[in-house]
């Protein structure tokens, strides 16, 4: 599928495009991608169809563009807080807290980003895979923490990333992302256990970082 030239409207602030973004996030989070259409999004955003067509090729293009932008914002925050921290363990914690804050800020956006990707087409699936890949890239830095003769591979990071993503998915889907204070230590445990070992990773479970 082609992409609309969305760069032009984004050079300056485009309030109509921002309203489209807000509308599609809320509508997809509430009803799912397959249940909405361009007309409904335009009506919710109070923009003309012509303006929508200037911004996006079609509804899937709109979904993917807004999804990409939100993921970049999330990644920017995570990279911002973890950059400059030399210790891998500290980076994991900083990233975990920043990501949790981002997801808790806006429950519709969290659902749009993580849960609604299911059932939104192959492009959305590729986005999901890319997010898991980026989490795996981040975790893969833990290979330097492994002591002794144990080996870890890229698969280690990918499985751990999938476990973390799946846990976040379940929490958002069940509407309990606001209880991130309780389960962030579990996520850190899952992320670090393959590298730090069971005993060291279990120490994470006693941490209460957000309270």
């Amino acid at each position, binding site marked *: 599928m082609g992409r609309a030239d969305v760069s032009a409207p984004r050079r300056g602030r485009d309030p109509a495009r921002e309203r489209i973004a807000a509308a599609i996030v809320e509508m997809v989070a509430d009803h799912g991608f397959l249940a909405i259409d361009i007309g409904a999004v335009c009506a919710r955003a109070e923009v003309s169809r012509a303006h929508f067509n200037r911004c996006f090729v079609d509804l899937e293009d709109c979904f993917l563009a807004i999804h990409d932008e939100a993921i970049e914002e999330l990644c920017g925050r995570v990279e911002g807080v973890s950059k400059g921290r030399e210790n891998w363990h500290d980076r994991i914690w900083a990233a975990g807290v920043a990501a949790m804050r981002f997801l808790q800020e806006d429950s519709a956006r969290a659902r749009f980003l993580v849960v609604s990707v*299911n059932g939104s087409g192959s492009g959305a699936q590729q986005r999901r895979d890319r997010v898991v890949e980026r989490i795996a890239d981040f975790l893969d830095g833990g290979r330097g923490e492994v002591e002794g003769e144990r080996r870890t591979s890229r698969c280690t990071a990918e499985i*751990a990333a*999938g476990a973390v993503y*799946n846990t976040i998915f379940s929490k958002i889907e069940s509407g309990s992302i606001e209880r991130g204070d309780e389960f962030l230590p579990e996520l850190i445990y899952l992320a670090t256990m393959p590298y730090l070992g*069971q005993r060291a990773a279990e120490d994470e479970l006693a941490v209460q970082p957000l309270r």
Partner: protein
Amino acid sequence: MAKGNAKKEPEEGAVAASPRLPAGRHGLPREFVVQNQRERIVTALVDVVAERGYNATTVANITKAASVSRRTFYEHFDDKEACFLAAYEMVADHIAASMRGAAEAFEDWPQQVRAALATMLRFLAGEPELARLTMIEPIAAGGEIAARHRASMQGLVEILKAGRPEHGGEHPLPEATEEALVGGIVSLVIREISAGRAEQLERLLPDLVELTLAPYVGAEEAERLARV
């Protein structure tokens, strides 16, 4: 300790192609005809979804591939989703039963986990089209189908939960450990199938076993068990 080899190997293809009935007055019992039609429709759906993906598949595609009328389709299924779920459940139930059977052949819990994972990977590697149908299409479809897919993973979650007594750590394992581990396993399997490497899935077994056992028996022991 192993009781012996797994009781049964996965069957060659859970959804066997059904022979097409001869046209005209064939004199076959109605019950047989109805069952035959249903199987043809389900088999056709598997073929069409493998070619086009679930979201792009239409009822017309399925009826054409099955050589049945639209009316016959709706005599068996309410809609495309119901037809997909019938196919999905047939395959998912087969995989789940095979995994349970493989696990039950061993008394030792780590061996049970290894046998269950090996059985799943072997089936998916041997049936790339069914691998897509059961692991990728439910997520692309979303809604009820995706929910059913997540529920079907519960069998593996239960096998893993049986390992909790093996855990010797100071803190109890987090409640969501098993679901998270299964999520990690499924995520990696999906990635491999999406990348066109379904036939090579069995090479993931050592890594999957190691990561799955580690929270229960410790990383060092998990690595030893995985590489045996």
